[in-house]
């Protein structure tokens, strides 16, 4: 089983991101589970969402405390939230950010793989949200596919076309662009 934890801010679409990723895994014949951190979300406040994937039905129903991989939708969270808490050694941290890679590496430390993509810029280029409030939850999934190799970009694109409620083509192309631009640091 692989467990993935999303960190975002209320309104950024972390929940839909985790659900779309689950959908992509499902398209590759996996058993999946996606759920939000059960809270009373407020716009802008730190939120979490979770995704589990396995080859057999999933009986675990508690929140994810020791994820295999982390997705960070807003790199400013690195200042206030310990996003790597419980992350298994060697796990991927997929970050949406636009600073130099060294900055994120110094924040995350050396125990994990770090993949960086400017998903905010990609989102805006594809008409997803605004410069001040880009919607990055689909672009980041492309970067996740590149970083982990757990799911194909084709499955991510198909999941977006089937699952995301609006601007499907823009979201799909954003995921593809982020897949191509995500870099290990």
């Amino acid at each position, binding site marked *: 089983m692989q467990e993935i934890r999303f960190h975002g801010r209320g309104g950024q679409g972390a929940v839909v991101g985790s659900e779309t990723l689950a959908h992509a895994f*499902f398209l590759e014949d996996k*058993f999946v589970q996606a759920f*939000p951190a059960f809270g009373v979300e407020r716009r802008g406040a730190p939120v979490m969402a979770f995704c589990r994937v396995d080859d057999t039905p999933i*009986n675990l129903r508690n929140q994810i405390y020791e994820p295999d991989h982390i997705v960070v939708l807003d790199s400013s969270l690195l200042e206030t939230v310990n996003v790597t808490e419980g992350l298994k050694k060697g796990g991927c941290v997929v970050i949406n950010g636009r600073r130099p890679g060294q900055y994120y590496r110094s924040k995350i430390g050396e125990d994990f793989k770090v993949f960086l993509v400017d998903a905010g810029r990609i989102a805006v280029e594809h008409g997803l949200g605004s410069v001040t409030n880009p919607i990055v939850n689909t672009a980041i999934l492309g970067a996740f596919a590149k970083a982990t190799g757990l799911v194909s970009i084709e499955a991510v694109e198909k999941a977006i076309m089937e699952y995301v409620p609006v601007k499907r083509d823009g979201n799909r192309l954003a995921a593809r662009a982020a897949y191509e631009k995500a870099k290990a640091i």
Partner: protein
Amino acid sequence: MRQVIKGNHAVSHGVRLSKVKVISAYPITPQTTIVEELSEMCASGALDAKFIKVESEHSALAALIGSATAGVRSFTATSSQGLLLMHEVLHWVCGARLPIVLANVNRAVGAGWNIWADQTDSISQRDTGWIQIYCESNQEVLDSVIMAYKLAEKLMLPVMVSYDAFFLSHTSEVVDIPDQDTVDQFLPPFEPPHKVDFADPRMFGGMIGPEIYYEERYCIHKDAMAAIKTYSEICQQFQEAFGREYALAESYMVDDAEIIVVTAGTITSVARIAVRKAREKGIKLGLMKLRLFRPVPYELWRGILGGVNKVVVIDRNLIGGVGGAFVSEIRSALFPLEKRPVVYSAIAGLGGRDVTPADVLGIVEHVASGKADVDTPIFWGLKE
């Protein structure tokens, strides 16, 4: 067709496939998305039903008294305070012998204000005469709604299908959504024995005196107890039609068990993992999943639990001044046995607190060690 959907949408699909004709509901977290989806189905034409908006849960269920008396399949959904506000009407629906199905997303009751998983809401309505079923997965939620109509209409008694807030209601997982033809064959149209009919006028809900009220209540009890046999048959028919197996209470690895843990709802899934871990550690643990809670399947529980040394019941509810609700019923069911297991009680997961396989294993190890006190619940994870 297999899809990744939330527990609440599994209910909506179950209602759509059951060809419900009237839906009336009032929004409350975490139930709301059930009826949101249903209202969209009504608007799009995917479901040919009347959606009645009301100003309270009391009115939501009261509206269904009308529709069910008129002879059409009726549905509502609620949670927590919403279910409590229905309390008076719950009794009436049962007494009026209306086969309404209600989905209750198990949520804690206030005060303090808490929207998370806890069984206290439906537990507090256990004596209203409604049949109660507790579910463990989104698939089971969908299937249980369809089976609930078959059971309700066979016995002319209402059925409440309950499942955990967020752990199912807002969790997406793979669900096989049955096709309409198969459901139609399994669940034929509702043909009530009596309904509002101008050609055949009757009185509904009139006054009945001491000379007949007792007999009315006896009939409710007798028919509720008949649900045990009827529901077993329905589960069998469901398996034949859809290939999925359900029981009134499911036993898992109990054949050689020395301890059996009893759970309801999603703690069951977690307990399945705990059973395997316990066995790796040499503890012969089995699991009984409590599914049908009203009527109480006394014989079935005795058959599964009667032969072991120790039983521990995990309640995601706590009745002040009593303890866990499920453990009380299990103890009462086992009491007539000449030789009966020692039944321990554990309280866990209240108000949505996470219950992990390690928690279940910890409870079981505490019981296995002989340190647990049978007179006091194990308040697992309680902060001092």
